[in-house]
């Protein structure tokens, strides 16, 4: 069963001059048809301007298709009556944690979403507790968000989405501004939501190491999906990724380089452990 499905999705950015005449049309998303299985961990790769974020913004109806259709949990995102159901079903976390946190205290911030949905007070507190525990931030519940590190703030943002009981979480470059430890914490939290809570995770990232555990990867270029497969299938194609302004994890690149020089190594080595096992 697909939790997200797009059919011939097109989104045009239309530029107009001062009189309102159309100057140019850029298709940021250009006839994308894809399906995401419920409970899977999906990664979307692509260079800056390839259409990843535009595609992601269709999943919680921030953007509405120019052509084609997007269904989220069976709901057509153009259906205005379903708007709030769609946004509750698919939560979004963005790059900059400082733009997403509004509460003075961590637990208030996390409670904001369910409160806004009209959830009864007692249940709000239950949801806040379980959400903060799921991202490993429960002990910070009484803290002020501005005293937290970037990785901790980003996990509070995720908890805020989680408290709305979504089926899908879209993370749009959640680690771009974080230090190495913060990056690890956020990716670990995202994996836990997927594996423990069964939430469908869509991760957009420019850090290749972050998606080696994904179930499926989509690679975008010029608004189209140009590659699709498991991380191993995708990362086996080093030159093709490089031509799309992307790369592979360092360990994959090293194995690829050694293979070119004649060492008999398999394609698409993804982790240090796999590399060491392959060397023997």
């Amino acid at each position, binding site marked *: 069963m697909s939790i997200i499905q797009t059919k011939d999705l097109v989104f045009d950015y239309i530029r107009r001059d001062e009189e309102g005449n159309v100057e140019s049309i850029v298709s940021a998303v250009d006839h994308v048809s894809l399906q995401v299985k419920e409970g899977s961990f999906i990664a979307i790769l*692509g*260079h*800056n*301007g390839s259409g990843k974020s535009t595609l992601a913004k269709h999943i919680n109806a921030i953007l509405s298709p120019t052509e084609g259709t997007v269904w989220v949990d069976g709901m057509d995102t153009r259906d205005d009556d379903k708007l709030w159901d769609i946004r509750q079903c698919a939560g979004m976390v963005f*790059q900059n944690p400082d733009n997403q946190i509004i509460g003075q205290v961590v637990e208030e911030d996390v409670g904001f979403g369910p409160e806004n949905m009209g959830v009864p007070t007692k249940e709000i507190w239950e949801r806040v507790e379980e959400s903060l525990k799921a991202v490993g931030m429960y002990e910070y519940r009484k803290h002020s968000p501005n005293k937290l*590190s*970037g*990785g901790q703030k980003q996990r509070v943002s995720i908890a805020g989405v989680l408290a709305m009981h979504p089926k899908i979480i879209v993370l749009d*470059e959640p680690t*771009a*501004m*974080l*230090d*190495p*430890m*913060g*990056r690890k914490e956020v990716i670990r939290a995202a994996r836990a939501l997927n594996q423990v809570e069964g939430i469908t995770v869509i991760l957009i990232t*420019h850090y*290749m*190491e972050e998606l080696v555990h994904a179930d499926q990867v989509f690679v975008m270029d010029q608004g189209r999906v140009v590659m699709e497969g498991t991380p191993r299938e995708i990362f086996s194609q080093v030159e093709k990724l*490089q031509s799309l*302004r*992307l*790369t592979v*994890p*360092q*360990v994959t*690149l*090293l194995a690829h*380089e*050694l293979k070119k*020089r004649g*060492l008999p190594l398999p394609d698409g080595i993804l982790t*240090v452990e796999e*590399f*060491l096992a392959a*060397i023997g």
Partner: protein
Amino acid sequence: MPIIIDHLTYSYGDAGADEKKALDDISLTIPDGQFVGIIGHTGSGKSTLMQHLNGLLKATSGHIYFDGQDIYDKDYKLKELRSRVGLVFQYPEHQLFEIDVFSDVCFGPKNLGLSKADAEYRAFNALRSVGMPEELYYQSPFDLSGGQKRRVAIAGVLAMEPKVLILDEPTAGLDPKGRDEILGLIKSLQTQKNMTILLVSHSMEDVAEYVDRILVMDAGRIKMDGTPREVFHRYRELEEMGLAAPQVTYIMQGLLEKGYEVDGDCTTVAEAADEIMKLFRRG
């Protein structure tokens, strides 16, 4: 002339129990033309230190000498310092504002009091050195791609013709090719123009690939100071500080543990590939 930082401390909050030291007794010498990487977790003091170097923040105690002069001397002109030490903030493209790329890059040199002709000459050179195609000079900066915008923002600082360039996470949010392009550009400013470069980064792989020297900051202090090989050799300590080493370091250490005789301190893919091939050539 090198930059000399002498017992620099910066504290905020009230003196006494509430006093927090963002920088705690830092002493350093940075020779001309060196490419220095600064790493440390969020809040370790990296950006605070950088803001001292062009006079945006003033130390609570200690001194900074630039070209042999104490920048805290009463008659020292901070404006001159700021034209010599260029600072590129995080997401510098958010500071673009002019109607076209060329005007935006002219803003800095004009502000220095240069004539229109001189300012335009500098803007032209700066845009050329960041590799902007000429047909984009009269486009609105807001119509450019993310990587291009960032180049324009860097050109705006280069047009001031600084001797020292400080960049705070210049590759955040860029795709892998965009990261390589920006870092390659910065490296060429060092090798071709002999600029001193200070690069604040969260990417251990990038730092390992490009810099001559790494400073590791933690709790407002310099905890390590050495070449990438020396610093990443202490990867366990880095992990305790919330940092890490490049993936290559973990591979080489893993090979050592398995009993292979390799140089465990390789920090780049190219070095590691050469080292592992030696192993197999020996048989």
